[in-house]
């Protein structure tokens, strides 16, 4: 790709890639915007920027990640996702073939979730002004009547459920980024959770108080956020937290704690105790929830600590981290 020169021909080439990959009636009209009918009920809207490095990783690329991530942010509200927009900042010199691959996996990811990418934009910037490709996506969904998932709905005694093994995405990224020689064979969990959430909502209904996708900062960051919003603490059982042996081994090697490592196809749900078992059973029937687990509970705590239970009733604090896991032992 080149910047500035080429003008029209270039723009047409690029939009051709996206039209072909996303192929839907809205894009086909070639307007600067798309009109669509609004379903009855409340709408949900979210936006997110994707700057992942590397752009391609085992289990996906920045394109599928952007679609999955944005859909997941919509469905964490308990909503059904409908439409997406996508904006691309492309660095001069980026390969057409790579762009096509990324666009096609975005199209596939969207179709897989039954959503449409109905509007978008591309900009090519000078070399050095972007790291290959940045994608910004916005998602819109519709929420069934009476549903209002929110962190302040969490109550003491609520169960903490996770939908599967933690840390897969972060470790998969590491495997390509700087540890090629370590031959880490982990595939990112990048996936759209709309079906899993639909199954959970059907069983749990309003018993599901909060859902989050524990992306950057991992489960630790997600639970600390919920703790702060709800004014509660969480007590987790370390042994109950699902982690794949290969992920655990790599984390051990690198000195990382998997609960701080990013996920892209997992959710954590705070669920009323009376319905938690049923929700968990329902999750396990879904392929994306087959390793789901009940890992702890919400507790009264004026400090809003997230704690890992230790022996004799003690607890180690699971803090959120600003940035990476830095050494601390003096």
């Amino acid at each position, binding site marked *: 790709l080149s910047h500035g020169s080429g003008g029209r021909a270039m723009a047409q080439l690029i939009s051709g890639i996206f039209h072909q990959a996303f192929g839907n009636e809205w894009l086909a009209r070639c307007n600067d915007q798309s009109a669509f009918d609004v379903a009855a009920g409340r709408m949900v809207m979210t936006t997110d920027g994707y700057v992942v490095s590397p752009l391609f990783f085992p289990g996906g690329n920045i394109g599928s990640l952007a679609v999955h991530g944005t859909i997941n942010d919509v469905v964490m509200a308990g909503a059904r996702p409908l439409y997406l927009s996508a904006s691309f900042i492309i660095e001069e010199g980026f390969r057409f073939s790579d762009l096509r691959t990324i666009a096609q996996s975005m199209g596939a990811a969207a179709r897989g979730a039954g959503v449409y990418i109905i509007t978008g934009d591309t900009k090519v910037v000078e070399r050095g002004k972007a790291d290959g490709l940045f994608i910004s996506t916005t998602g819109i969904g519709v929420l069934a009547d009476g549903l209002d998932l929110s962190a302040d709905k969490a109550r003491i005694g609520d169960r903490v459920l996770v939908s599967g093994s933690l840390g897969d995405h972060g470790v998969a990224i590491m495997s390509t980024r*700087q*540890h*090629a*020689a*370590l*031959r880490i064979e982990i595939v990112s969990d990048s996936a759209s959770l709309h079906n899993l959430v639909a199954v959970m909502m059907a069983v749990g209904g309003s018993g599901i108080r909060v859902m989050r996708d524990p992306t950057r900062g991992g489960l630790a960051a997600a639970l600390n956020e919920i703790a702060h919003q709800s004014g509660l603490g969480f007590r987790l059982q370390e042994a109950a937290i699902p982690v794949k042996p290969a992920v655990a*081994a790599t984390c*051990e*090697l*690198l*000195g*990382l704690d998997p609960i701080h490592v990013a996920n892209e196809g997992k959710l954590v749900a705070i669920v009323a105790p009376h319905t938690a078992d049923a929700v968990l059973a329902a999750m396990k029937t879904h392929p994306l929830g087959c390793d789901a687990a009940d890992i702890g509970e919400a507790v009264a*705590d004026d*400090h809003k*600590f997230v*704690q890992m239970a*230790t*022996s*004799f*009733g*003690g*607890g*180690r*604090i699971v*803090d959120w*981290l*600003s*940035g990476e*896991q*830095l*050494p*601390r*032992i*003096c």
Partner: protein
Amino acid sequence: MSAAAIACDPTRLRVRVSGAVQGVGFRPYVYGLAKRYGLVGFVVNDPEGVTIEVEGNWAAEFVAALRLEAPPLARIDEICVHQTAALGTKDFSVTTSQAGRLSTRIVADAATCEQCLSELFDPENRHYLYPFISCSHCGPRYTIAERLPYDRRNTVMKAFSLCAACAADYADPASRRFHAEAIACPTCGPRLSHGINAIVAAIAGGQIVAVKGLGGYQLLCDARNQRAVQRLRSRKQRPQKPFAVMVGSIAQVNEIAEANGPELALLESSARPIILLPTRNDLAPALAPGLSRVGVMLPLAPLHHLIFHELRSTAAWLAGPGPVIVATSANPSGEPLLIDNAQARRRLEGIADLIVTHDREILTRADDSVMSVVAGRPQFIRRARGYVPEPTRLARSVPTVLAVGGALKSTVTITRGNEAFVSQHIGDLDTAEGLRAFEETIRHLTSTLDVEPVVIAHDLHPNMASTRFAEASGRTLIAVQHHHAHAAAAIAEHGHAGPALALVLDGHGFGCDGGNWGGELLLCEGSRFRRIGHLAPLQMPGGDRAAREPWRMASAVLHRLGRGNEIGPRFAAQRQAERVPALLDRQGGATTTSAGRLFDAAAALLGVASLQSYEGEAAMKFEALVRRTAILEAGWTIERGVLSLRPLFSRLIADDLDAADGAGLFHGTFAAACIDWVTHAARRTGVSTIVLSGGCFLNAVLAEEIDRGCRSAGLTPLVPRQLPPNDGGLSLGQAWIAALRITNSRQP
């Protein structure tokens, strides 16, 4: 005015005494002294200390004697004398405290005094065998005080109203218990949940007993009973970390350890710290595995004396040597000492066979203090009970600052005027209980000092709980680099002005460049510093994991020496040993300039410890192996301030070296290299004062060699004396730097 210059009769002298003179029996002492000199007048507590007015022929002699016979726990900072007109008072009276601004202080808890001890075992005395006997020379203070002034109504003793006999003692200026706030007797005071015979039967029977001590719950068991000790280890999940022991008397210390004069004096002092002493016999393997020293302490509370008294009369002990008891803090690993009865019952259920409690509340926890004697001088390892809240004197008055310390072995400091109050050892801040204890300590210290700090000093590390606390406070923040704080703590304590070099040999600190620092040569001046040297960076594969697993640091050394292929075979028992070489091969991994990690690496290379179950385990076991030190010629290089021990490590991994020789060679060469390093720096900078601080200076072999080497090179070492050289001293250094920065910024 000096006492000698004071004319006698017919004037009256107004004497103001400042220092630790409240709650220590100072007023009854003054009363007795005044009576002896036939004087009239009064004595009263006031916000600055004590005010005395005396009239009579021997007033000047009285003033001269004031310091000489002061009660054991009193500390007089200053005596000011003014002449006033005689009033012709009839008698000498002791007046009750005046309210007002609080700038006086609470003193530290003190071990049972000799007089109370003889009353304790005197069948005629009404305190006979009473586990809560105390007087103004002994007993709890800091741990039971809620706020100032230090009056019974402001302590947990307010829950017990005095019986007639105790009330009489309390009101009698001639009594040792005059206004002794913690006094009690079997009629009116706190009660123990169990009889002494039940406790002793349990200990003698090999059981683990939790008792509520002075500053928190302790676990006791028979130290000569290997199975009891092992059971305690497995229940506390503490496989290797040494246990301290208590022996019944000073005479018995020598049955188990070697103690010299200064060590015996410390053992017997009213602070009753644990002293690390070279072990003498077979007690060691279970108590302090792999170590040559064991922590020893003497009974400090009446309960301990009663236990030993009863133990000695138990048949099993009569034949053999005296009883030795493991005395360790009763907290689940890594958590703060338990002080609350309900919580103790809940948390100790699975650890202790018997939980002995009482109804005198502990308001502030205080672990046992731990010390050793290095080069004939006391050195703190952990500063807590018996020493807090004694302040550190600063070179001058500074703004009020709260400093929140680091993350592990943490303390906090608050400055007030020209004094810095360093809290007791709080512990690690990675548990909820630890963080709560940290916050409680700040609250309690702030209220007992009656100050409101507006500035908070904290470590530069972004992910420390103490940093988070500071950020959430909404106050003005001053971040201080970890090793700068280590250096500043010693500078503050010694009141050193002007530039100083600082050799900080430490485990880890977040550097100004975001890197992992730990073996640093700093040039400090005022509130600033410059990093003029550091140890050669070494990879730390796995971050903090490398600190817990010395074999990883050893692997980094092997890799550096081009012998990465040996990592797998040498550390075959380690799951990740096969993959670490690839991790070390890649570019851009984290490195560290830590000194502590070099000790870990050396210990692991010589087969001393591949993993550690407690902090400092590898280094402590490594040190314990040293028989004599040796220096490897050309064992190090110094280039542009960077000290590399690469040649030493090359020698260390040769097959012909046994662990003990290797330990001696490593310690000797490392010390010699450091001396060479600082001598160069001193010559280049023209600065000859050299601070020696950081956690590695708890290594007595290293500390002594470097201290001696610096002196013979004509340098003046500044060594932390009032605080430990490890992270327990960080908060003082942070406070001092922050106070200097505020002062500087206020100047035009």
